[in-house]
């Protein structure tokens, strides 16, 4: 079987080539993943931190409930819930575009996983760190801000790398609610052109490139933020 890459130069019937369509779909994938990443990181960091506040059991329970809720429902089901059920129950969501609903779905799902990692990262710190902060007379906020979180953040960087790459790949479920991202493009263009192998190869390559770029960015952050002697990052490779 021979590959025919000319398919990317042909018109898709609306004045643009399949190549242009694919790049546009790539931008959608990056937009969905990027926006969801911000939501997931902010929520995940906050909720993960709240779950380690032993003095506020209700905040811990709330955080635990959040994580269990969003971790134990399949992502695809969550996307469908956001897209079909939430607007029906909460009328205010009827005006919200599909893109935003998918960002909620992906962002909340990933935030639960990131929260779990942040909690683990904070708990991985020696108990003495917290006690030392208390001994210095720091308030809870100060001990987190200046002692615990800076170290915990460095500990969770390797799992955060994996999670960010997962988020990018998971953005492919947005095809299920007609977001015109890469997977959606792959399915539609495959049907229209019957050049499935070429299109899938190109789409797969774009996903691989995106994932590798995310990986490299995090490797760079990890290297820049390394605290000599405190964490032996890079020794085992992590992800």
């Amino acid at each position, binding site marked *: 079987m021979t590959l025919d890459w000319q398919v990317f130069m042909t018109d898709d019937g609306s004045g643009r080539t399949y190549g242009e369509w694919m790049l546009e779909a790539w931008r959608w994938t990056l937009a969905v993943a990027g926006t969801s990443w911000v939501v997931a990181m902010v929520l995940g960091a906050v909720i993960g931190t709240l779950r380690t506040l032993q003095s506020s059991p209700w905040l811990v329970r709330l955080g635990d409930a959040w994580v269990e809720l969003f971790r134990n429902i399949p992502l695809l089901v969550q996307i469908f819930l956001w897209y079909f059920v939430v607007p029906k129950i909460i009328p205010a969501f009827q005006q919200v575009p599909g893109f935003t609903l998918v960002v909620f779905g992906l962002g909340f799902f990933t935030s639960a996983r990131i929260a779990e990692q942040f909690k683990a990262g904070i708990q991985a710190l020696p108990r003495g760190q917290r006690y030392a902060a208390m001994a210095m007379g720091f308030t809870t906020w100060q001990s987190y801000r200046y002692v615990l979180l800076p170290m915990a953040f460095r500990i969770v960087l390797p799992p955060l790398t994996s999670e960010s790459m997962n988020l990018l790949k998971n953005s492919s479920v947005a095809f299920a609610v007609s977001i015109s991202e890469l997977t959606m493009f792959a399915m539609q263009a495959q049907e229209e052109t019957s050049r499935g192998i070429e299109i899938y190869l190109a*789409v797969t390559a774009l996903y691989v490139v995106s994932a590798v770029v995310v990986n490299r960015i995090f490797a760079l952050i990890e290297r820049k933020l390394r605290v000599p002697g405190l964490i032996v990052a890079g020794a085992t490779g992590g992800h």
Partner: protein
Amino acid sequence: MLGLDFSFISLDVLQKFVWGGLVFSVQLTIVATLGGIFFGTLLALMRLSGKPVLMGPASFYVNGMRSIPLVMVILWFYLLMPFE
């Protein structure tokens, strides 16, 4: 309530669709887990073997599969399977 209508749920629907779907989900999970453990162990052994002939392809497969969305993997299988 909330504009929702659950009247479609009947014993018939539960038996035909919900139960069938649940059984299929569990079956798929079991088969995929067993297959994953088997091939995963094989790949791990290949990567630890110290022989470049085995380590190269295993690393390529693992890194490749890990950087592709699951949906794309399924689409690939769907595209390729009937013709081979």
